[in-house]
């Protein structure tokens, strides 16, 4: 790759998903992150009850992310050929896991469930 700059990377991602979808996804990710930060600042504490559910959802997010990439790219787990492949796989899984945890935590904090309602923070 020549000149793998941030700008090139953005251009490549725009081409992969299409400009509209890519920026919608970026906006969605940014929105969830903002909402998460908002919830943290509003509550000024991490709710361990919410965090438990969020943590439990992490493996689901990891598996979903890996499955999505495998299906989209016609790959199988047996295609992994070297250390870098394992790193990529773990990276995809981690992104899925963390994304899912943040999403679940935020949703629970914003919408609230019976289990966590009545906590000090709400």
């Amino acid at each position, binding site marked *: *790759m*020549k*000149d*793998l700059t941030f*700008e*090139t990377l953005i*251009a*490549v*991602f*725009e*081409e*992969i998903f299409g400009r509209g979808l890519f920026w919608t996804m970026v906006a969605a990710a940014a929105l969830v992150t*903002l909402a998460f*930060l*908002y919830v943290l*600042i*509003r509550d000024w504490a991490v709710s361990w009850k919410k965090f438990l559910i969020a943590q439990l959802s992490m493996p689901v997010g990891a598996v979903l992310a890996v499955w999505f*990439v495998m299906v*989209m*790219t*016609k*790959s*199988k787990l*047996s*295609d*992994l*050929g*070297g250390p*870098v*492949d394992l790193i*990529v*796989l773990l990276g995809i899984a981690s992104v899925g896991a963390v994304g899912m945890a943040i999403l679940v935590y935020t949703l629970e904090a914003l919408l609230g469930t019976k289990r966590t309602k009545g906590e000090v923070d709400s």
Partner: protein
Amino acid sequence: MDRRTFLTAALAGGAVAGMATRGEQAKAQTVRTSAKIVIIGAGAAGMALANRLVRRLDGAQITMIDPRPNHLYQPGLTLVAAGLKPASYVVSENSDWLPSGVSFVADKVSAVDAISKTVSTEGGQTLDYDWLVVAPGLVLDHDAIDGFSLDMVGENGIGALYAGPEYAAKTWTAASRFTEEGGTGIFTRPATEMKCAGAPLKHTFLIDDIARRAGNAGKVNMVYAAPQGSLFGVPIVAEKVRMLFEDRGVETMMNRTLTAIDASAKRATFATETGTEEVDYDYIHVIPPQRAPEFVVQSGLAWADKWTDQGWVECDMQTLRHLRYPEIFALGDVAGVPKGKTAASVKWQVPVVEDHLIAAIEGREGTETYNGYTSCPLITRIGRAMLVEFDYNNNLVPSFPGVIAPLEELWISWLMKEVALKATYNAMLRGRA
């Protein structure tokens, strides 16, 4: 922080980020000129250059000439010929990429007069130029294979994926039948210089893999036939391919040039060092000899002492500038340089020509050079590829040394080919990568 302060802070952060990007865009300096620039060819090279030039030049008259209304993403043809993508995957409209302010002439070039600096088209137009970029691609000489014509592709076990998207799709029709029914499959390459020397290997590996997945590995007899004495131009890669072929059970027929096929008898004729040899096949993949378009030789732009049967444009290896006509540059497949008939090479060549062309307009010398960089994500099976990158000196020049090993079959290299390559290519066409 309460809700309002938080939102205000978030908004302010976004605004600052937005301003930073706008500032960067305004930074690119433009050169004022009234130069007439003609680009022959709207393929990967011509289109990418046009998009970069309009951004750098203010007032230039840029004209592109190409007879074809469609743009082809040629790196996708091997995927189409293995049934992994539809034919439409490689086709887009020229107008999708054509920058505004560039005139497009939908015609075929018939001659270039480098003395009076004019380009004539078959439709009878004559265009003056101050600077000319020759990037028409190359011509597939199908007639050079006796008994072969394109209408045979897809039937009787004949494939020819180079010929275009519909032929690549027909190639898959023939190849998929072979992977089910078995028999002898012969995978050829020409004696001339060719587009992407990795593609014949990719087709071999993919068809072998597909037969294997269908449980028919025992039924197919895979044979790779090449006029050269080695499997790849870069010795270290050739050795690796030799090992992979041994592993997959692909036989080789080296020093054999396909000269004729008898479609009804399913028999191919090869020229050997001493005579001819006939081989029966159930599937054959034909890649014909490849040459520069007729007008290049006729207009005296080609090398007089190199590749005389192929007619590539005589140009400097490093700057791609014509050695006799300094106002002419060659770009892409047609350039008479030892390596680099791939889209990846084009990506490296375009900024070099852009630099020297703009420097010349400003009356100074350009500084960028092309080192022969060529890259090939050599697919070795569905889900794995080797990212092979090399230069004029047959040195491996890995983009990600220590991370993506060049001669290792990796999933990440497949991901790059499958997901990122077309996107990078498109970004290149827009002059953004």
